[in-house]
Each structure stands twice: as structure tokens, then as C-alpha cells.
């Protein structure tokens, strides 16, 4: 009896979704926007910024938008379950905010053609209802690299990588190239943490780098733990805010930051769904588009270095400079970009090699 009722209501729900789909082409009166987060909102970094974007959607459309989100969803089979539940629960558009949701997003999208899926930092759009969006974080890394190259006293700089995926490799290469450009003696140590969010492990990774003499640390993980570890050295080691501004470390090790500004994109996409102009997209904005912001460079950085970093930022924003401009060789010495050539987006999105000068291998 109970099961029958359940089936009936499920069928009803499905019917509602379908009729909702029919109305979609002509715009919608109300959109349920759903977000899947890889960490907790309180991480102070990556997920915090995505949630901030979600709240901007709510602020922009008020009652016309209903939000739903789920935190700390593991990348893998669990993600598929969560996505299916959200799609069954009446979500019209689902934002999956981590690279590892890529296959789950496409698999679930195939089953729910009327629900729109938006996958962050991925490249697979196997279904017509899957869009991808990303930010050109490597542009921010170029600014950080410049500061790192100028600020290091030991000529050893560090990078805490999460997973060896193109997005992270891109950031490492950009960071290193620009540090090297202003300080040819610089050496880069990369530590892979194999996690997006594990404060204790991120702190251990930062500690391992500091033990090796590194005095500028950039992190590609989601929490503020690496900055907290750097703060223990009383100013000997500096770092950067990652994903979020992390202003609470401004008086300490944080000298600048990369801020992910997802709000405008979320507002635009949900708005398109509301007024019926929604189309599949592959968005990749950077500093110029306002999706990547450079957080305030603090007084710990000398004025001329600050000016240099800001000039680089402005050149990237104006489109007069591309962070990957040749000549650049790959790690094995083979040529990648010729003199004056800039990297095509395709090369960047599939980047699986270090540039010349970085030691160590990318784990396969």
C-alpha cells in the first residue's frame, strides 16, 4: 500500500518535471537552483565562494528562485546518488562544483534531459543539457608567481597541489614561469595532497615544505590550513589566499589572494533559464571577465613589487598579455610554444606536463 502510494507520487513528480520541461523553452516563473559542494561551506575557500555565488542568485531573483544545496559530497558514486535525488526532487538547474563530479554529472544528465546541469572546471559535455564553466585561475597564479619570485629569500617556493589534473598543473606552470621570470634562481617544490579538503593534511603539507626551506607557499586546496601553518613561523613564510580572500590572515602570512567570483555567472545562467534564453555553454572567464579577482596586496610586499604585480594583473585584464606566451619548453626540453605564440585553450585544458625547469614528475 505504502509502496504503491510512493510510486504514484514518484510518477506524479516525474510528470511535473516533464511538464516543467515543456514550459522551459518559453521561460519559467520559478526556478529551483541546486548546488553540489565538495567540502563544507565553512571551509573559508572554494566551497565558501560557490555558496556566496548561490546566495547572489537568491538576492538577484528573490522569490523566483528556490535554492537547495548539499555539502561535502564525495567525488564518485555518491555524487551520482545525490544528483539523482536532486533531479527527482524538482531541481531545474544543478551546479556541480568540483572537477571530480564530471562523469557523474554527465551520467545523471543523460537520465534527466529536462534538467540543466552545469559542471565547474570540467570539459565533458556529452549531453545537450550539460554546460561547463571555469575560471582562468592561471592568470591569478601569474600574479602570485611574480610576487613569490620577488619575495623569496631562500629562492625556494612551494605549491600544494590537490590532484594532478590539468587545472592544477596549469596553475603550477603559470606560478613557476612568472616566479622564474623575475628571479631566475628560483626553485619550485610541489607537494600533492590528494585531497581538496583535509585541513590537517594541508597543514602537514605546508609544514613539509617549510621544513625543506620553502618560504613562499601557494596552495591549491580548499581550506585556510596552509596559511595557519605559515602563520606559526612569525612572518618568515608567506602565502596566498586561495579561492577566497582569506582576509583573516592579512596581518599574518597572506600577502595577496585569488578570489573566485562565481556570482555573476550563476546569476546570468539562472536568469537565462527564467527568461527562456538558456543555451548550452562552455564558459571560461578570467581576470578580464571579473570571474578571477586578485585580493589586496598587503603592505608586507614592497611597493615596487606590488606595482609590478598590479601592472601584470592589468595587462592580463586588458588582454595585452597572456600568461603562457612563448618561448616555453616542456619539462623534457621539447618545444611547446614558439617565440611570441600564446597557448591555445585546448592545450591548457588538457595540460599534463610541467614546463622546463620544474623538477619532479606529475603522478600519473
Amino acid at each position: 500500500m505504502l509502496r504503491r502510494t510512493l510510486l504514484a507520487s514518484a510518477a506524479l513528480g516525474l510528470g511535473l518535471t516533464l511538464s516543467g520541461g515543456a514550459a522551459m523553452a518559453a521561460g519559467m516563473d520559478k526556478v529551483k537552483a541546486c548546488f553540489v559542494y565538495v567540502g563544507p561551506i565553512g571551509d573559508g575557500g572554494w566551497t565558501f565562494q560557490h555558496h556566496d555565488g548561490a546566495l547572489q542568485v537568491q538576492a538577484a531573483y528573490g522569490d523566483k528562485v528556490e535554492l537547495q544545496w548539499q555539502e561535502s559530497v564525495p567525488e564518485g558514486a555518491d555524487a551520482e546518488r545525490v544528483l539523482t535525488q536532486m533531479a527527482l526532487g524538482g531541481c531545474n538547474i544543478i551546479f556541480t562544483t568540483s572537477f571530480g563530479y564530471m562523469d557523474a554529472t554527465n551520467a545523471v544528465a543523460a537520465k534527466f534531459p529536462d534538467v540543466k546541469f552545469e559542471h565547474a572546471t570540467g570539459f565533458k559535455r556529452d549531453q545537450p543539457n550539460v554546460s561547463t564553466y571555469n575560471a582562468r585561475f592561471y592568470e591569478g597564479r601569474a600574479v602570485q608567481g611574480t610576487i613569490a619570485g620577488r619575495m623569496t629569500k631562500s629562492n625556494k617556493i612551494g605549491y600544494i597541489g590537490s590532484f594532478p589534473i590539468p587545472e592544477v598543473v596549469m596553475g603550477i606552470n603559470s606560478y613557476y614561469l612568472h616566479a622564474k621570470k623575475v628571479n631566475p634562481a628560483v626553485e619550485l617544490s610541489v607537494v600533492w595532497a590528494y585531497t581538496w579538503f583535509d585541513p590537517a593534511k594541508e597543514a602537514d603539507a605546508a609544514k613539509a615544505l617549510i621544513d625543506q626551506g620553502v618560504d613562499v607557499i601557494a596552495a591549491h586546496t580548499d581550506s585556510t590550513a596552509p596559511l595557519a601553518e605559515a602563520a606559526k613561523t612569525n612572518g618568515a613564510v608567506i602565502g596566498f589566499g586561495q579561492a577566497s580572500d582569506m582576509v583573516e590572515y592579512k596581518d599574518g602570512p597572506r600577502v595577496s589572494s585569488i578570489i573566485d567570483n562565481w556570482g555573476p555567472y550563476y546569476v546570468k545562467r539562472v536568469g537565462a533559464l527564467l527568461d527562456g534564453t538558456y543555451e548550452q555553454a562552455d564558459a571560461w572567464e578570467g581576470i578580464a571577465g571579473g570571474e578571477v579577482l586578485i585580493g589586496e596586496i598587503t603592505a608586507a610586499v614592497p611597493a615596487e613589487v606590488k606595482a609590478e604585480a598590479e601592472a601584470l594583473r592589468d595587462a592580463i585584464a586588458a588582454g595585452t598579455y597572456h600568461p603562457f606566451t612563448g618561448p616555453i619548453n616542456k619539462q623534457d626540453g621539447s618545444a611547446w610554444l614558439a617565440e611570441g605564440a600564446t597557448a591555445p585553450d585546448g592545450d591548457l585544458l588538457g595540460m599534463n606536463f610541467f614546463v622546463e625547469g620544474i623538477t619532479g614528475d606529475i603522478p600519473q
Partner: protein
Amino acid sequence: MDFGGINPAILIASLMAASVPILLAALGELVVEKAGVLNLGVEGMMIMGAIVGFMVTIQTGSPFLGFVGGAIGGAGLSLIFAFLTQVLLANQVATGLALTLFGLGLSALLGQGYNGLKPAATGAVPLGPLADIPFFGRVLFSHDWVVYFSVFMTGVIWYVLKSTRLGLILRAVGESHEAAHALGYKVNRIRLGAIAFGGAMAGMGGAYVSLVRVPQWVDGITAGAGWIALAIVVFASWKPWRALIGAYLFGGITVLQLNLQAAGSSIPVEYLSMSPYLITIVVLVIMSSGRGKAALNAPAALGQNFHASR
């Protein structure tokens, strides 16, 4: 004296510190399981300890009171588990899992407004000239008091379980609660005490994460350390000193692989990362092959509820 660019003294010193949270939590859980109770809520108790300890330290400015607060926070949460399983006789596995979920949620709620604050530092114990001894000074005499406390507690728990009347009663309750009851021991009260002790230890472990290892509060800060502590108890086959070895092995390999990477070593880190889990599986297979549960050393009444009317 370097191996592959890594100074072994610094490595050992860091792994001792890195292992403290899982060691404290594993020791607590070991006592709980010795009393015949399976509390899978270690993760939840750890994170409650992390946030309560953090809050107390922020409010009072004293890291020591923070650890006391962390212990109380962990013990407080464990009392919910104790009430449900010892009084209402709820299923221990389900209750333990629920306790973890509850702890994670409650800590996130309590932690609102504590993001980004910095607690007072817990310094190294000043051991004077001892810390200047080459190698051993760095390895043994440059730690904060919690590191020494964790080793001390290993010894205390080993001694109490092995050589005291209290340990004998505790083990009797864990091996055969019917027999212990027949002898006149209050099975549920003894178990309640063990559960509270386990909660306090897990809470201190959690407080170590938020006060020393990552001196800040973020949601979900323990990130699964409680589950590793549970694995260590089995790995250690319910013996305190083996729990110490297990914790140093798990914690040590994490630190080692990060240091190897920072030093630019070419050893593939994936194998190192998985090795503690592989070792756990191997230990389980060896222990459970042939000679049955006795060889596993698992308390015979583990996970079974007791009611005097039966």
C-alpha cells in the same frame, strides 16, 4: 644526516605530533571496545572536542583549558550514545554512525562565528638543555605537552588493563557480560564509564587538531581521522602499545610521503599513501586465519547490548 633530502630528526618529530589526534582517539576507543561496546561515533566525538576546545581557548585564552573543554565536549556527546545504547538498548552500530553525523552537524552549528580566529598557541614544553642534544633533542624533547600526554596515556591504559583490578573488571564486562553480572558488577554503569572515557580521549584528539595541528576552526576539520582511529584499534588487536605503533605508522606515512614530495624524491607517493590500509588488511587476514575470534583478540561481547533481566 639526511636521507633523500629529509632530515630524519625533523621527520620523526613531525610524525609524533601528526599522530597525536588518532592516537588519543584510538586509545579511547580501545578502552570502550575492551568493555564490549562498539562506538563508531569517534569522528563525531573528535569534531565536538575540536570545536568545544577551540571555543574554550578563544574565550579563556588558555590552551590547557581548551583541552579540558575538548575532553568534556567529546565525553558529553558520548553520553548521548551511552544513554541510547546502555539505557534504551539501541543498536550500537546504527547509534554510533548517527553520533558521527550528529557531531559533524552540531559542531558546524556551534562553530558559526569562530571561523578565522586564531587560538592561543600551545608551546613546546621547556626542557632546557635536553632539547639541545643532537638528534634526540629534536626527536624527543621539543614537543608540546599533549604529545607526552598521549604516550603517557598509552602506558597508563596498558598498565590498568593488564595489571589492575579495574582493568580486570573492564575486560570481564567486555568478554562476558553475563558472567560479570553474575559476579555482581554493574555492567551498564561500567560501560557508561568506559564510553565517557573514550569520548573524552577522542575529544582531546579533536582539540589537538583545532588547537595545535591546524590552529583554527573550519567545518569538518577532522576530515575522517576518527575512522582511521577505529581502524587502528583493529590493527592493534586491542593492545595499547600496538595502537601507538599503529598511530605512528598511519601518521608517519602521511608525513613521510608529503616530506618525500617536498624533498623532490621520485618514490611514487600513491603506494606510500595506501600502505597503512594494506597493512591493516594483511594484519586482519593473518589474525583471522585459522584460529578464529580468539586469535583476533576481539572482546567476545563486542557490540552486544546487555540488560539484567535476560
